[in-house]
């Protein structure tokens, strides 16, 4: 829990800074617009969290998002009747890509960095091979509603995000969550205590693939069809998860903090935009914040642990309350 606290502090500071620069942010529509913008990355980060906490990487999600949007545009091609079947197909396809990633990583024992790097190349190549180099077709208004439409005052994407957050929190509280974290912490020990490690990791990849599909549905609606829609999203998702205090290598971190990491990243972009540091320097600031946040987390922990141990020791050796205070 200690690890997850800093990210909420950083997020709060950024949100206050945004509110100071732009008071509209404090009104409900302004805030909801921010959440709507952050929703695709937050959902993607939730999926990436499962993979990272199980001790692996998923570099294929950016390519997968692009592929899904391009596939949706070509298959729907402006026909409203095709919307729902295509959405179902996208979700199945995302899960299937995750299944392949997971199976290759666990059963063929290929490092997930290479598995998903290979998948990234395969997806990006295959989808444009199929469409002939550029996106074709069009999305329907129905499809785009999820990314940019509202249900009453609340954007659809915010509702979808809430549903996803509820689902992943429940999942992490269930047995699966515990076995997943145990798998990432020490696969050998987890296997000896009866966890089916390959199955658990494969499910993590399937969840990541499915989250990329949901992200693609939202982004396709929000930003429209382009060949660059998913570009760099894999690194943004990993950045968000790591900002949330989740440790690369697995076994530590919470999914809510990972989602907060995505919001922090989006808040940072919003803030940079508000202060006119758009475009060029944005990535530089992102890099500095990324390193600084992780470094601070790493530096603070041992000090905190030492302090906690010191106070414990004094309370144990000296029952006298006056000493314990000092």
């Amino acid at each position, binding site marked *: 829990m200690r690890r997850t606290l800093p990210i909420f502090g950083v997020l709060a500071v950024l949100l206050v800074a945004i509110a100071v620069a732009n008071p509209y942010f404090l009104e409900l529509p302004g805030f909801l617009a921010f959440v709507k913008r952050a929703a695709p990355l937050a959902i993607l980060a939730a999926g990436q969290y499962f993979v990272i906490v199980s001790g692996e990487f998923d570099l294929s999600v950016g390519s997968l998002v692009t592929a899904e949007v391009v596939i949706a545009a070509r298959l729907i091609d402006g026909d409203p009747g095709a919307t729902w079947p295509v959405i179902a197909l996208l979700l199945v396809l995302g899960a299937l890509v995750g299944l392949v990633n997971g199976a290759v990583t666990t059963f063929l024992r290929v490092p997930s960095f290479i598995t998903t790097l290979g998948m990234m190349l395969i997806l990006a190549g295959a989808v444009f091979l199929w469409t002939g180099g550029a996106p074709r077709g069009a999305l329907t208004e129905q499809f785009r509603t999820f990314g940019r439409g509202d249900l009453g005052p609340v954007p659809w994407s915010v509702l979808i995000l809430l549903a996803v957050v509820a689902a992943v929190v429940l999942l992490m509280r269930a047995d699966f969550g515990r076995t997943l974290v145990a798998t990432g912490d020490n696969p050998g020990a987890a296997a000896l205590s009866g966890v089916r490690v390959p199955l658990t990791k494969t499910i993590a990849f399937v969840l990541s693939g499915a989250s990329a599909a949901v992200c693609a549905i939202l982004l396709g609606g929000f930003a429209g069809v382009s060949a660059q829609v998913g570009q760099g999203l894999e690194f943004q998702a990993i950045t968000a998860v790591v900002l949330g205090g989740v440790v690369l290598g697995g076994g530590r971190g919470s999914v809510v903090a990972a989602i907060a990491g995505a919001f922090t990243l989006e808040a940072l972009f919003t803030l940079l935009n508000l202060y006119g540091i758009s475009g060029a320097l944005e990535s530089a600031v992102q890099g500095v914040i990324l*390193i600084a946040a992780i470094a601070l987390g790493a530096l603070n922990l041992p000090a905190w642990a030492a302090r906690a141990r010191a106070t414990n020791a004094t309370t144990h050796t000296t029952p006298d309350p006056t000493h314990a205070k000092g």
Partner: protein
Amino acid sequence: MTQELHTPLPRTSAPRGLRDLGADSPARPVYLALVALTVLAWILFLTDGGQFFSQANTVGILQRSAALGIVAVGQTLVILAGSLDLSVAFLVSLVSLVAAETMAGYGVLPAVGAVLAVSALVGLVNGLVITRLKVHAFIATLGISLIIKGVLDQRYDGPAGSVPESFQHLGYDRVGPVPVSALLWAAIAFAAWFLLRRTTLGYRIYAVGGDPEVARLSGVRTDRVVVAAHVLCALCAGMAGLLLAARLGAGAPTVGSDGGYDLESIAAVVLGGTALAGGRGGVAGTAGGVLLLAVLDSVFNQLEINSFAKDVVRGLVFVAALAIYARRRLAR
């Protein structure tokens, strides 16, 4: 578990000469694959009416792969030390601009000096962030590459600087049939091989990559080894940047990221049998991995297959190769 305990024994009891050969054994499958692919390429070229072993084609393969080859040599060092470097692509771009602009203003030698200084500095920062600030190498070098990208985006819109005629020889000249760029690659690869096999630092890189805690307990200052590996890796990226500047005649802010030198160099290293977790592998395998990718490219060019199909095949090759390595490790 018990299998792992048994396997090292025969190797340690083997004579020294054999052990040296055994240490390079991860490189063997990539060269077998390279020979097989070359034969296949030769046949495909024949059916398509081309000549694989024509001078134009072989020189082209060497010339195109030299820059990636040099970056991958550096990447091998950091991966062997248990780290990795995602910043090399943007560093290559940055360095090509530093080289071209300094050459336009001050001449060739100051430019080479500036390039080596800039790249050593970036490597030093990478190494220090990883070891002192205890940031995971993936995040540290990703962060540094974002910073370099920001600087590039801020300062440059397109190609800048110019490289004098005399320096462009590095990009295009040949000694007999062999391009100078390939000789540079070979020299750097040999230097790295010598470093890894014949110097204390080399042994320490393997030790730290194999098990940092054991290395530390045996008296190795692990942090210094990781920093040194990162500085050397960045210097290799710097040399690649010089080479690309010589070839383009100017510096270009996208030359590194367009070439995909970050992920591609890691893929070439791993294709060459070096373990991504560190401690096992070598430069010879990496050279084989780079050549394998280059021969694959030349086949695609000859058959005029589009770049999207190329990506699909590359992805399949990476995953298949690593699956085969994993099988071999299990079988032993």
